[in-house]
């Protein structure tokens, strides 16, 4: 079983966003970066599948600057076998990112290529699916349950008010959602072992793409609300306000 996981370095989800100079991206000063949480499900799935198969290789691929090496090391510490850093600037256009990743993955002999369903910075939900389309592979996106056996892959995706059951033959691309597993913490031994694992750096350059970020702003502050009252008697007042003032019931 040969499995690739694509991993993105993103600001920690608790980061307080400050718009940077230029007004198109965030101010990264003092921001802590972490592996994209959805990608951690993919990393866990890759490690668990290899453990179950008893043999194979797991590879983590990341696009980014030198700092992304630390993110790759986190995956290596969790148990991924080796890393590849595609060194270059990202793009607001997910298709450009997908093209670079697909070029690296193409011909790699992977049975499975895993992604998180989206990155928590740009919220695109796009790159994994696009890589599958470019490579002509089946794509099971946003799966919260995953099963690989006998050359096939099955998954479940939450849809509005239901669950879609998906099936395809390997090789395939899968993007993972919360619920698919619980990512392990790297062990301390794993962290020490990670620095000895291979990490290849390959320079890449991305195309211009068709999406141009023209601005980034903070959402308007909500107007301060009001306390309707204290205790159960306030419930009647609230119900009236929701009907007559807010007009939502």
């Amino acid at each position, binding site marked *: 079983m040969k499995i690739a996981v694509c991993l993105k370095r993103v600001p920690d989800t608790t980061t307080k966003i400050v718009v940077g100079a230029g007004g198109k991206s965030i101010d990264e000063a003092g921001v802590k970066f972490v592996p994209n949480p959805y990608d951690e499900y993919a990393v866990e799935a890759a490690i668990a599948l290899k453990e179950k198969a008893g043999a194979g290789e797991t590879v983590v691929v990341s696009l980014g600057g030198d700092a992304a090496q630390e993110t790759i090391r986190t995956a290596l510490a969790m148990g991924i076998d080796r890393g590849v850093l595609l060194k270059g600037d990202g793009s607001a256009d997910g298709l450009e990112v997908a093209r670079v990743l697909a070029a690296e993955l193409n011909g790699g002999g992977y049975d499975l290529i895993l992604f998180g369903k989206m990155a928590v910075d740009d919220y*695109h939900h796009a790159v994994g699916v696009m890589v599958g389309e470019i490579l002509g592979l089946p794509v099971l996106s946003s799966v919260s349950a995953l099963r690989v056996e006998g050359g096939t892959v099955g998954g479940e995706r939450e*849809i509005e008010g239901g*669950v879609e059951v998906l099936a395809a033959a390997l090789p395939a691309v899968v993007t993972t959602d919360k619920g698919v597993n619980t990512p392990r913490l790297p062990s301390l031994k794993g962290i020490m072992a990670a620095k000895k694992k291979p990490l290849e750096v390959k320079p890449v350059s991305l195309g211009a793409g068709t999406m141009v970020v023209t601005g980034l702003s903070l959402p308007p502050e*909500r107007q301060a*609300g009001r306390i309707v009252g204290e205790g159960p008697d306030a419930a009647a007042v609230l*119900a009236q306000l*929701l009907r007559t003032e*807010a007009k939502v019931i």
Partner: protein
Amino acid sequence: MAAILAVTEQRGGSLRKVSLEVVAAARQLADAMGATVDAVVCSSGPVEGVAALGNAGADQVRHASHETFTLYNPDGFAATIASVGGGYAAIVFAATAMGRDLAPRVAAKLGVGCATDVTGLGTEGGAVVVTRPVYAGKAIQQVRLTGATAVLSIRPNTFATGSAAKAGTLQPLAVPAFTARVTVTAVKAPAQASLDVTEAPIVVSGGRGLREPANFKLLEDLAAALGNAAVGASRAVVDAGWREHGAQVGQTGKTVAPSLYVAVGISGAIQHLAGMRTSKVIVAINKDKDAPIFKVADYGIVGDLFEVVPRLTAEVTKLRAE
């Protein structure tokens, strides 16, 4: 004349409500560009509700019928839409489970990028420009789409549906040959059958303040009284195994924007706020008057939820019966 394609959704032969929002958004864009709107629907038979698409703003409704289109067919839908998509100035999807899967497929086939979860759109110098929340809604990004076809998906419950009185003429759309690499073999009911939090116009969410899983019954009762409401949950209670992952609202769960969000026994950690702060009206019920949730709530009640919620359920039931 330029045209916009609105990709609608059906399930079980009925048009989904979000389709009207997609058409309304496409109409808004079309009016700004002086374009027409085509809606497309993929199914295996007649679809109930397509007649409403004209009123929502569709000049034409293109119906792609295929025997394998009963359930969502990722490769088939993508091939069909991409086969005509290049002729449109823009293709509008909904950022639903289907739209999130389908839009990037179509965009990749057309060789353009894809803007997901759009909350505002217009034109600027002939190009489509969109605004979309990023960093879990903690920032808003403005993006200009420069491809020959702009591919985007709109956030549900964001674009108002109106009355545009267009013809909505039904036309068949040929389904091209395609390879179904991945198939949807079934649609199951979720473990806790209920309205999805991302779709429901009203969401009632509970947190640790409920003390134990069985007490979510209070919220289910309130949701039933409000009607058309889903029950959501904070990360803490989902992690504790009280509720399904799919019900989690917040940064690592679902981002919701209902017209009414009721937070019960939720303190309002920043991760939770990120998932619901764009709701139109927020109500908070909490015993701690300093809870951060009150900072974002339009209406708050300080009190014991075990007393307040049953009273609210009774009051809502009374009002709605009037």
